[in-house]
């Protein structure tokens, strides 16, 4: 810059020597601490580039001497969390199901744990709120094919139904039509009879006596004399208001003709025991547990 020692006469201060339309610019410099802070931030930025990943390259980025990545940080955090939870999860593993229900802290833990694991594993079939769908039981209600006590629920989760596991629940709804056991008119009669068991309306002029007879001959073995079902066999209660596949005549005819055999997978081996326990408590606490 050129030398100039121009002074503004009114303020008595030096000017920068810049002039626009007769207006001169006073030399009002920044305070030293401000300038030094500014340089410090620049130096800081250099440090940052070196230490952390900062620069995009053609096929990647500079890694930085710390080799910091968000992913690694998350993994480390998760590991830390697991370690932190270790104690409590162990307590969950050793306590009996009934004890968990009685201990508010353990119950809260089991419910929280069960809820997330349920979302990850069970929601695809049972729905995220366990409300079920056609063919997939609603776990909120009080109708249980295989029993709704804590132990029964745990058993079902652990080994499944028709899952191929040695301890799985077995039991089939036979295909009375497909296998030629019953004829069409007989199926219609028994379907209407089953509807009458739970107080549903029946087709006008259907043969009630015939339906009852067919039911007595073919169905009571599993569903019981009064149609209340049998949880040992996973036979549905036909007298309640809850129907897994639907209660209209067509659906019932379909069920009786072709049978049903829904599969619940076994979770043993896929989830650790304390998690299965937590899930049993969670499902039980949804409200339908006996």
């Amino acid at each position: 810059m050129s030398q100039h020692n121009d002074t503004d006469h009114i303020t008595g201060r030096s000017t920068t020597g810049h002039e626009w339309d007769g207006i001169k610019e006073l030399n009002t410099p920044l305070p030293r601490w401000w300038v030094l802070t500014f340089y410090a931030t620049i130096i800081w930025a250099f440090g940052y580039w070196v230490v952390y990943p900062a620069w995009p390259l053609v096929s990647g980025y500079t890694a930085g001497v710390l080799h910091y990545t968000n992913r690694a940080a998350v993994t480390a955090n998760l590991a830390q969390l697991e370690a932190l939870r270790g104690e409590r999860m162990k307590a969950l593993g050793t306590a009996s199901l009934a004890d968990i229900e009685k201990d508010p802290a353990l119950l809260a833990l089991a419910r929280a744990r069960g809820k997330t694991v349920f979302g990850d594993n069970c929601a695809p079939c049972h729905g995220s709120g366990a409300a079920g769908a056609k063919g997939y039981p609603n776990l909120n209600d009080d109708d249980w094919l295989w029993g709704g006590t804590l132990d029964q629920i745990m058993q079902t989760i652990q080994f499944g139904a028709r899952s191929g596991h040695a301890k799985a629940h077995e039991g089939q709804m036979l295909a009375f039509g497909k296998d030629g056991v019953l004829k069409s008119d007989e199926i219609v009669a028994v379907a209407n009879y089953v509807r009458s068991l739970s107080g549903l309306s029946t087709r006008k002029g259907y043969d009630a006596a015939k339906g009852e007879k067919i039911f007595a001959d073919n169905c009571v073995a599993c569903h019981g004399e009064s149609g209340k079902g049998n949880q040992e066999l996973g036979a549905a209660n036909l007298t309640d208001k809850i129907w897994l596949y639907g209660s209209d005549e067509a659906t019932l005819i379909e069920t009786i003709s072709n049978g049903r055999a829904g599969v619940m997978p076994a979770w043993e081996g896929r989830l650790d025991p304390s998690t299965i326990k937590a899930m049993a408590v969670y499902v039980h606490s949804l409200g339908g547990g006996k």
Partner: protein
Amino acid sequence: MTKNVTSKELMGGDDDLPLYAPQKKIYPQRVSGTFRRIKWGLMALCLGVYYLLPLVRWNRGLGAPDQAVLIDFQSQRFYFFFIELWPQEFYYFTGLLILAAFTLFLMNALGGRTWCGYLCPQTVWTDLFYAVERWTEGDRRARIKADAGPLTAARLARRALKQAIWLIIAWWTGGAWVLYFSDAPTLVKDLATFQAPAIAYIWIGILTASTYLLAGHAREQVCLYMCPWPRIQAALTDEWALNVTYKYDRGEPRCSMKKGRDLRALGEKIGECIDCNQCVAVCPTGIDIRNGAQLGCIQCGLCIDACDNVMKRIGRPTRLIGYDNDINVQRRTSGKTELFKPVRSRTVVYAALIATVCAVMLHALLTRSLLDVNVLHDRNPVAVKLSAGAIRNGYTLRFLNKRGFDRVIAVDVDGPANAQIHIVGVDSVTPDRPMIVLARDTTTELRVLVTAPFDEKAEKTQPVKFRITDIGLGEVASATDHFVTP
């Protein structure tokens, strides 16, 4: 940007302009008088409250913290004497902030930057640090002389002593800060034995550094460059606000004592300012108040004391510099009487707003419930049909017991006809009216199921109200939601 920046470049070469204005060293002189006494008093009060408050005890019963003022981050509670606030009551702090803002506005409308001059922490600590500086290095003249002269061993020793005392004060400031966040006596012991959490040491470090740097070294630079208040204040003030003012109608034209006497003998009209520069010498921001109202003036009133002392010595009436406003300067010049107007629309509005916020907060505080319940309806599924045809809805109820003792509450439901309530995990002796224990000073979250017989004629959604009753105290609270029939 790898080139080293030399100090020569920063300072500017011979033919270069400087990049920065070095901090002008200010040597405020000791002064005594009314405003100095007020400032000492307020300093003692502010520092006393700040340093000692965490040590005050307040009995809240067994197991509860007995510190009068405590910000408990871990359990998310704020204790202030008899008040205990929960995180969801954070609006009280919002109220306090609003109150603080309006109070600042009111002070500003009445007396200019009164906050800056007397109460601002930056002022209070800087004032304290100046006192230390005067005590160790002598008053204005001694310091100027010593700074100009060579660096002797004695001078070095005085400087070292000053820095040491500064650091001790700064460290004590940081130490007192952390005491607000944990039980003070325990924390003091833990700090001394290096058992305290790292965060405590970190905060002490931060506060020590900032106090030392801001009060010891940045001083008036904070007021001039860092603080936003002078800018805001300038926009909020009006011509009636009482500011520290040099009454130029009385003081000008200024003239030295001797020359003034001579000129007066010749019949010239001479002002009362004898240009002794005492007002400039004492000013902590190093400005000349005789240039009129300016951003640098923090309204500390010390120049008033300085000038009053001069006026007393030369036998003239005091308050050549005093709290005054521009209107009066003009009125006096044109021979009118002085006029002060503390009650004007601006101050009335501020005062009314302050009173309103106070009243609202007080009302909220006095009527705040110590028992509360919130309800959240299950969304998935919204309703469940049971085997016998009844309908059940699930809710998550959150109970808040803000009292310092456990209590037993009963939960009732007013909903659809014949609705029944069940709390998951609770076997109650009274099944139709479950009772639960709420631990003291906690929230309890429970899953609650309400079952009602299916009624074809009923509305699809009906209101349901959860009432909770403290069995012992009779306190009640309730929350309302809906019962849905699919």
